[in-house]
């Protein structure tokens, strides 16, 4: 392989994130205690620089896919958009969590470092162009997340959640690797283009290939948290510190989408008849169990966990359509969902305070009286998750449904609509509690400027993206132009 300096330029966003993480790691060691807040400044500056780098790299290469490092790394319109989205979500997550983590003495350098490395893992996954790179990115992300879930060392629930997540995550990775080894055995390649070429030549007659595909799909479903591989999601969300749950529920879902799109669409398009059948089952189960079980939850973190599961079902709907409109719709949904999840958990983080965790639905009662602006933002997020026009959740659902009706699966669209009506119940129950119930607690709500700005941007983005979806949608469609 002839290494070229231009490869490093293609890699610029990842390099910026890596350098930021290492800078924080070193700075945290040498800064005196009272100046440790500089970690936050370095992190924000690094994330902003990475965002700029994504823009610069994207503009200079245009819509043509660019390969680097002997085809291990790919930069294309999809990677640019998804990287931009995860960077924005991570910025929001840092802005939300500052006060919460500081009050619990967890606002330390390691938190920044682990979140930044998790972000790096996500970006590696988004730009992976082979099974090896994809797996390494996935492990980088997962290792950081395990540690982050157990970040509160004095919390038994956190340790339990991290343990469950670790064991199930390792099992999922094992399944994925086993599937990859089968595909490697059948095609003799781990790069996505090479695999795609070999699969196209071989077709669906090769049983080993289909066998490997099943295990790869199980791995993907594990990471997404689709039914029946969803058991870890509610427990992990409940046990993790709220800001970690915020990050965990938003950015890694974009990574999971990237993983599914790269593996299924880039590497195994010739097997689409096989994988779309499996995805139909996963998607119907996820929408059904996610929405129905969420109704019975009194813990709002668990409720949002089950709501994640149901949204994953919708993302799968777009993928299984097998058309470029379907993929674009799924991508739009994944980005919109990351923003919605960040907003919902962000509000929870803001109304928690020293010695009090906002965990139960009752804790939201009367938020409309306690803090009208925050209540309005939460309402916006909840309506968006329920799919009420003109918010972005409605647009996302509409696009996905359109894609599957186009391929003639009307019954599936009807099932999806029925389950999202079921789901609307528990989202609207939250809104009802915010505005029509008397407050049970009279505690101050987070007043820091950063979190306020973040929640305003986050809540209003629901409205803006819902009313003017064209810009984001055209970017998504550009990513899947055949």
């Amino acid at each position, binding site marked *: 392989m002839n290494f070229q300096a231009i490869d490093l330029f293609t890699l610029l966003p990842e390099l910026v994130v890596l350098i930021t993480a290492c800078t924080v790691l070193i700075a945290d060691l040498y800064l005196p205690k009272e100046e440790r807040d500089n970690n936050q400044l370095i992190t924000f500056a690094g994330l902003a620089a990475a965002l700029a780098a994504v823009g610069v790299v994207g503009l200079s290469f245009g819509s043509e896919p660019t390969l680097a490092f*002997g085809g291990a790394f790919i930069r294309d319109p999809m990677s640019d958009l998804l990287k931009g989205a995860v960077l924005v979500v991570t910025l929001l997550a840092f802005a939300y969590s500052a006060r919460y983590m500081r009050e619990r003495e967890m606002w330390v350098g390691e938190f920044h*470092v682990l979140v930044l*490395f998790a972000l790096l893992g996500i970006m590696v996954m988004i730009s992976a162009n082979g099974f*090896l*790179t994809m797996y390494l990115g996935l492990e980088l992300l997962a*290792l*950081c997340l395990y540690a982050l879930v157990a970040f509160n*060392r004095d919390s038994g629930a956190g340790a339990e959640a991290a343990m469950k997540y670790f064991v199930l995550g390792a099992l999922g990775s094992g399944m994925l690797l086993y599937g990859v080894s089968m595909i490697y*055995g059948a095609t003799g390649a781990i790069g996505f283009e090479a695999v795609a070429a070999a699969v196209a030549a071989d077709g669906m007659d090769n049983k*080993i290939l289909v066998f490997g595909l099943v295990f790869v799909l199980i791995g993907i479903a594990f990471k997404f948290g689709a039914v029946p591989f969803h058991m870890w999601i509610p427990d992990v969300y409940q046990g993790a510190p709220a800001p970690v749950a915020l990050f965990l529920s938003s950015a890694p879902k974009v990574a999971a989408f990237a993983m599914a799109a790269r593996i299924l669409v880039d590497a195994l398009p010739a097997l689409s008849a096989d994988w779309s059948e499996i995805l139909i089952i996963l998607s119907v189960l996820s929408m059904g169990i996610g929405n129905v079980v969420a109704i019975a939850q009194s813990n709002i973190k668990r409720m949002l966990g089950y709501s994640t599961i149901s949204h994953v079902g919708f993302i799968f709907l777009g993928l299984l359509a097998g058309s470029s409109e379907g993929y674009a719709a799924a991508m739009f949904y994944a980005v919109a969902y990351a923003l919605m999840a960040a907003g919902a958990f962000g509000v929870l983080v803001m109304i928690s305070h020293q010695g009090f965790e906002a965990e139960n639905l009752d804790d939201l009662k009367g938020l409309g009286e306690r803090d009208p602006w925050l209540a309005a933002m939460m309402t916006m997020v909840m309506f968006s998750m329920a799919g009420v026009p003109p918010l972005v959740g409605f647009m996302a659902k509409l696009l996905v449904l359109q894609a599957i009706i186009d391929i003639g699966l009307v019954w599936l669209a009807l099932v999806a609509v029925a389950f999202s009506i079921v789901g609307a119940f528990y989202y609207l129950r939250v809104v009802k509690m915010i505005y029509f119930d008397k407050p049970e607690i009279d505690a101050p709500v987070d007043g820091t400027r950063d979190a306020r700005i973040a929640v305003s941007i986050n809540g209003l983005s629901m409205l803006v993206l819902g009313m003017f979806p064209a810009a984001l949608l055209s970017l998504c469609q550009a990513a899947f132009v055949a």
Partner: protein
Amino acid sequence: MGFEKFLFYVFAAITVFAAGMVVTRRNSVHAVLYLVLAFVSSAALWLLIEAEFLGIVLVLVYVGAVMVLFLFVVMMLDVEIAALQAQFIKHLPVGLVIAGLMLFNLFLVLGPSNFGLDVIAKPAGQPAGYSNTSVLGQELYTIYVYQFEIAAVILLVAIVAAIRLTLRRRPDTKYIDPAEQVKVKKGPDRVRLVSMSAEQTPRPPLAAAPTSGDKEMAQ
């Protein structure tokens, strides 16, 4: 070919047997030792497919270093095995049924019909002077340099995460700061005479010291 095949089946059988023992042994030290056995026999399997370097590294690093360390940890932990065992037995029938079905499925797909030598030809062996150590090194630092760097980052994360999760500052440990020790001066630092009155410690109550009971009563 015949002898190689025989060796493969012997080592494969040992690996499966050892892996089974790892999860069923009551004594966790025995389980670790069986894990060592599983590693050694898989190293032998790697030697059979001409991956000599990986086989040797597996023995040197995993068996020689990691597992020994692990053995120490397991010896020091006091694990409640009976409770784990009860759960294991409770779910055993369901697990066996699922495992049986999976095995049947696996046999259908991975059996001789799809995986025989006539389906996938045996790759040609390497010439005599071939060193897969040097090839591995060259490939790792040229073609796979990006993946190699990510692996390095993963190791860094593992260090950071492990330190964050386990390192606690304990104020009660008898910790001596070497920097402070070095800075000690002859004058007032080493010896300092302090005049103070004798300390009055409260005596334990009567029953604790029966011989001197009368004196304490007087006090």
